[in-house]
């Protein structure tokens, strides 16, 4: 099962490499990983999307927690949460027909065209990882995808619950 883990850790040199190293060392899976400092820039927040059964997840959470730099870890998928991922995708838009179609699909998914070239559109789309995947599949049927980049998902719990020091 897919899980989204939020990790709050010291914003120090080497902290990220410890997390990544731990996952490879213990053969845990990483589907995506994002990292950036938080509003308090002594802290970093990492979001990892991973796949594993309950037993593996228990070990992942415990092992990450054991790292000296880590302050907190939570499995967002265990409760109500908001999950978002950013996609930037460059597609071929060579004819009027394909430009219209790409614009239409982009509108349906609530994407925004952020750059236009002679024969390309660059589209920005935010949403759940599933939505992004669906968008890419739809685009693929209509035109040629020249380049795409996904941020990996970030997430936050709904309601009062907060991941803070």
């Amino acid at each position, binding site marked *: 099962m897919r899980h989204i883990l939020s990790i709050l850790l*010291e914003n120090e*040199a*080497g902290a990220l490499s410890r997390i990544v190293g731990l996952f490879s*060392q213990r053969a845990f899976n990483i589907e995506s990983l994002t990292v950036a400092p938080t509003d308090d820039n002594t802290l970093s927040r990492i979001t990892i999307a991973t796949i594993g059964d309950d037993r593996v997840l228990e070990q992942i959470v*415990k*092992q990450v927690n054991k790292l000296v730099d880590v*302050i907190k870890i939570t499995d967002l998928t265990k409760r109500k949460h908001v999950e978002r991922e950013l996609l930037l995708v460059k597609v071929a838009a060579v004819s009027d027909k394909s430009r219209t179609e790409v614009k239409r699909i982009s509108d349906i998914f609530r994407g925004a065209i952020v750059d236009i070239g002679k024969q390309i559109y660059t589209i920005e789309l935010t949403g759940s990882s599933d939505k992004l995947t669906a968008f890419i599949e739809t685009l693929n049927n209509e035109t040629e995808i020249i380049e795409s980049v996904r941020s990996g998902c970030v997430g936050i719990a709904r309601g009062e619950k907060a991941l803070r020091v």
Partner: protein
Amino acid sequence: MTTELFTGAEMVVKALSALKVKYIFGYPGGSVLDLYDAIFQQDEIEHILVRHEQAATHMADGYTRATGKVGVVLATSGPGATNCVTGIATAYMDSIPMVILAGQVPTALIGNDAFQETDIVGCTRPIIKHSFNCRDLADIPNVIAKAFYIANTGRPGPVVIELPKDLLIPQNKAPFHIETNVKMRSYNPNIKGHPKQIRKAVKTINEAKKLVVYSGGGIVLADAAALLTQLVETLKAPITNTLMGLGGISGLHENFIGMLGMHGSVEANKTMANADVILALGVRFDDRVTNNVEKFCPNATIIHVDIDPTSISKTINAHVPVVGLVDVVMQQILDELVATKFTPNEAALQDWWQQIHLWRDMRHVGYKQVVGEKIKPQRVIEAMYKITKGEAYVASDVGQHQMFAAQYYPFAKPRQWINSGGAGTMGFGLPAAMGAKLAFPDKHVICITGDGSIQMNIQELSTCMQYSLPVVIITLNNRSLGMVRQWQDMVYDGRHASSYMESLPDFIKLAEAYGHVGIKIDTLDELDSKLEQAFNIKNKLVFVDVLVDEKEHVYPMQIRQGAIDDMWVSKGVKA
């Protein structure tokens, strides 16, 4: 008033002094010469010069295992630091606190593939508890204080500190400030067990009819032998120790049923397999204990006490997990037993012990020493036990001799038995024995080893001469890599691929060349007297080369992929 300024090198020494460090084990080189110069100019801390950095880590490790004090290692950048890797891994696998100061090229050169540059923090990342890249001179004292705190609290382990050369040079100075009362927001190990879990544990113990206590290295690390003995006596339960936990209760205690696991006793493994409740204290259900996890003790309710949550339910599911320091939790359990007016179930205990005695009787342990034939290795351990009255510190290398020592030298106290259990590092024994001898010069310190292992750090005979470390080295010389050979006999139809040593040195001449005493023993009738003679030489290192039967196997031995109690008890005979 002007603040006094110090160089980074001076700060390292001052910080180590403030933390009451007596010894540094190390080897100099370019990037740490300023630090060596600072050590040279003071006499609070003594530097022990080894002959290879790996030995520095093992010597610090042996010192720590014997005393409980954090060992400190100093190595230069590049190869000096990478030579420490095996020793760091060894300490990590057995949860031994250690602080490793590794030199580094000047900050401005880092990343340039400079001379003797290696990313030692990167190299050691999977085998350390934590590490620090020191980048600011003024941070040095607090980084060192934090390193000691992290190494020695919670589940102990090694901590690496990388010190670039420009932080140590005389031109750069800063004020010295150290906070020895370390607090970290990201690191707060549990101490007490959760009261609800303690109540659950005691309730489970109360309902048990076939209880067994299974204790490990955690007891030794926590110096909790007295509490463990009290708990076992209160419960009147049988107790087994892991290889790492030997001495956690006296090997002669009437409730002690021997070591468990791959080369454990039949009664220990049978007792585990048939228990209805297992009280696991400071252990981690290692694969060398469990054998096939699918078949592991199917009828047992498992109470697992450990300081490290990741150890719990990692390989074997715990029904009652308790996270906390094992000594604190044992006291909580004892208190709860008193509070709930615990009385042992005498009828159940009688049946249980009767069964255990039956297993003990069928154990076939042992060996047959025939007069006139080659010396059996087990016989050597028994002789060594007798002469030292069971009071020696025994540092072991890795292989058959290690298992024979674990089986035939019942340790009365924790910290007497010093061995590389998790990593299984050949070459550990001699430097570890040296560390113990440094701490306890008046005690018998034995390095029990084989002709394979001893050659992995034999250069340290030179260090022993320099610092007068008269350990007694007992080499069970079977002219082969015994444990490898045993597996080749059992699993590979006797094809002895690369396990035979055709070019052993004359160990006696070798010992003498280093300035020590060498004694060769090749017949049974001279074994006791010559060993006695070796232990009577107090001021010189004695290298005893005992020629033993190369065909001897270590038994009992678990059958691969079987249950914990599926065992060979002798060649071709199953339990």
